[in-house]
């Protein structure tokens, strides 16, 4: 039950992430939305898999992967956003062209 709920939740996050990428017009908003899939959806999937396997060695490995994901995931998004900001890409309000 918990596993199914978490997996459904992760799919909802992925769905909203994809919708957000197409819905927003600004580069920064799209980047923030794509980073949501990277972090929240992947964390939820890993938590679901940990609950599915219960208390086992495989769960410990999944937990280590979860920690690794939490530490390394923000770096790629940060590098993309930083390069866009330093290259002078302007921040526009959503819906305005």
């Amino acid at each position, binding site marked *: 039950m918990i596993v199914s709920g978490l997996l459904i939740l992760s799919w909802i996050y992925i769905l909203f992430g994809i919708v957000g990428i197409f819905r927003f017009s600004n580069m*920064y*908003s799209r980047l*923030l939305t794509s980073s949501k899939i990277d*972090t*929240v959806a992947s*964390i939820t999937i890993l938590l679901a898999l940990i609950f599915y396997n219960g208390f086992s060695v495989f769960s410990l*490995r999944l937990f280590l992967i979860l920690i690794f994901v939490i530490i390394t995931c*923000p770096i790629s*998004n940060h590098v993309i956003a930083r390069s866009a900001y330093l290259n002078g890409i302007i921040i526009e309000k959503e819906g305005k062209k």
Partner: protein
Amino acid sequence: MVYIKKNYKLFIVLFIFWMLLTLSFNYLNLAAGIIICIAVTKLSYGIVYTHHSFVFKSIKISTIIKYFIKLIFEIYKSSFSYMLCIIKKDCIPCIAEVDLTISDPLFITIISNSITLTPGTMTIDVNDNKLTVLSLKNCCDYELISAEIKNKFENFFI
């Protein structure tokens, strides 16, 4: 090799991580693990440790666990508000500068990583203890963004 002998703690932590992930006691796997862990330990010289000791102050395990739980809670809390943002499409991306009171590089890294992990906010740049944060909210209030980040993450380490 001298530095590795002096700073064997990092090597041990990396090797335990390697063994837990692979869970194989083949000679080849052990040798590969040792070689990679030595290489990483050697490359980390000057970044993680110097010839005296570790660059960063160690954090209590209880603090890390508490912070991890709080971080997961904050991630899920802001993910729901961000979903509303996507549905309504009335959010404004804005860049705010946040002056942190703490100056430890490890804590600044943890805070900036946590900001990027939280949906709707992202750290763009770090200069000493000044963070440049990209935020996607209903209103572009710089002081509100700064206060929110300080309350959520910085107060935990003070």
